[in-house]
């Protein structure tokens, strides 16, 4: 194995890890706010990718511009989903039942995608699809760079929102201690709804980015949900930095392992990491006290 190949994989791994980090951040957000494990996250990811593909096919404009529609749309869907569906579940069994509920949503989305767009594999062909630039001897496709750029920008935006806006403060307060947040006058229900919308908006961005670079089909989301779930457990449920670090480490690991093992077996790294985490540190490597209990 020569150095340039290794370096190439490393760069690709970092780029992939960025996308994983963004999506895992969304998942962590839902979990933090509502103790909800959102199985449908990756289904929405694929839905956004399909919308970008459809937008491109119908209008011929760059699919990235579909973001201006899908992000607000997904935000609204997220708010509605939290207010109308998730909030209705009984608090005692919320975590378990929310898994089933979001699983049901994922199945419905997959079925509808297959129904409307058929099961055919789709791919967007763009002028710059085949182009790549050279970074220190590694060839990196432009679309992968765009994907990473989008993911990094959205993560940064998420960080700024969470850290410096009033809404972000009340969201963090809701995550930390709901009753206390209510006591200081935060409308936690409303904030939770917006937080949910924010999480789903990450799926819109991730899906659009994914559509540039990947062949999409309705059942693709199962290939994403496994790694994403593994990432948030390894990172510790509820910890955004944990999820981001785990996403980077596992993304790079997957990319490097592809050289000796091939793409299919390289995916097992997520599951190996998942089981190793459960054996060694069931609460995850960065998570707090929340994780094991839920």
């Amino acid at each position, binding site marked *: 194995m020569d150095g340039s190949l290794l370096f190439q994989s490393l760069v690709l791994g970092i780029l992939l890890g960025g996308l994983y980090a963004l999506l895992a951040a969304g998942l962590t957000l839902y*979990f933090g706010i509502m103790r909800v494990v959102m199985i449908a996250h990756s289904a929405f990811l694929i839905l956004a990718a399909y919308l970008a593909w459809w937008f491109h096919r119908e209008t011929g404009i760059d699919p990235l511009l579909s973001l201006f529609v899908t992000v607000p749309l997904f935000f609204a869907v997220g708010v509605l989903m939290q207010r109308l569906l998730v909030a209705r579940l009984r608090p005692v069994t919320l*975590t378990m039942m929310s898994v089933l509920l979001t699983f049901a949503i994922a199945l419905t989305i997959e079925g509808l995608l297959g*129904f409307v767009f058929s099961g055919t594999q789709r791919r967007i062909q763009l002028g710059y699809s085949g182009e790549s630039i050279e970074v220190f001897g590694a060839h990196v496709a432009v679309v992968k760079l765009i994907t990473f750029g989008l993911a990094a920008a959205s993560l940064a935006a998420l960080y700024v929102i969470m850290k410096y806006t009033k809404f972000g403060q009340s969201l963090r307060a809701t995550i930390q201690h709901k009753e206390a947040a209510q006591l200081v006058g935060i409308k936690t229900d409303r904030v939770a709804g917006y937080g949910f919308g924010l999480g789903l908006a990450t799926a819109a961005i991730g899906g659009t980015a994914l559509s540039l670079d990947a062949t999409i089909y309705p059942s693709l989301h199962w290939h994403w949900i496994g790694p994403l779930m593994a990432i948030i457990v390894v990172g510790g449920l509820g910890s955004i930095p944990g999820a981001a670090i785990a996403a980077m480490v596992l993304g790079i690991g997957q990319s490097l392992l592809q050289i000796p093992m091939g793409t299919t077996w390289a995916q097992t790294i997520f599951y190996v990491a998942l089981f190793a985490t459960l054996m060694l540190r069931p609460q995850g490597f960065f998570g707090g006290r929340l994780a094991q209990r839920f």
Partner: protein
Amino acid sequence: MLNASDRLSVSKAFVAKVVVFAACAAALLTFPSWAANPYILSAGVVVLSYAVLSTSWNFVGGFTGYISLGHAAFFGLGAYGTALLITKLDLSSFVAWFLAGVGVALFAIPVGWAALRVRGASFVIVSIALVLIMLLVFQSWSDFTGGSNGLVVPRPFPDMLRPEHHETFFYLFAALLAVTLLCWWLIDRSRFGMGLKAIREDEDKAEALGIPTYSYKLVVYVVSAFFTALGGGMYALWFGDLDPVFQFSILIGSYMVLMALLGGVRQLYGPLLGALIVGTALEYFKLEFGDTQFHLVATGLLLGIVVLFMPDGIIPAGMKLVDRFTPERSSIREMTAAELLERDQSESSERAGRHASTPSDPEPSTTEKAKR
């Protein structure tokens, strides 16, 4: 007086139960003779196999409340184990079937050991991951498992015609279902089952009361995996052709959950009833809409409705509806400890005769019984 009428009503309920049970069992067992054609019969076999699977799932889901979306892993392993033992080791069909079940149960020990260390959401994630791993392994390792080309299972009864074959397997599945139900019923009535249900209600309190929660969960997880694998192996022997995409499908796992939840996870016959409804509907959708993804939408919507509106299932919902039309009963649980104490005191002083403030309570309370 009270006791006599009480006993009468109990025996009436018992007779009704026996009659209903006998009628259902008779309807089930004579199904092959009144099924219109072999296709209907094969659909019946599929529904029964679903019933076996979701009853097996209910060992974990019903007793402990741990929802596993990944039982398809045990189903697929049972099926592939049976097939591989027959083809690679030349074992006879049913020996291979049983050995595969035992093998999967052994495999479930380390899996459960890891998975049951976490609760709730993490457990569900691990269970989904298990199916995805198995799918990956069985697809990639194609020189051993046949990969996506599929694996043909030798028929156990090579000289049988197709309708006869369906009929035989209908009875085999029915027998397996009966054993599974019996086992669930036995656990339900045992001290072990009591401990498991305590875990479902409140794991921390159960542990504080001295229940070895971890080993209880592990044992029931292994039992559940064993029966699921037997169901899978039987399916392999019947269907005769395996493909990783279908055996290790998350959908199969979600069907088990949906059926059990729909029927009611706390009821012995809940998963069976759910399997009858969902299984029949699925076969119908596949027949009517064929290759479209419509059955996914239908499954998703149904699961969503069940989770949102009747998470306890049809049987409890139905019983509530029946209760609404029967005279009101109040159980001991609906009274606070203070009320009970007050009643007991007044009863012991008044000898229960003129105490008319709780006429709606026909049963002597347990505290009273204990006093006598």
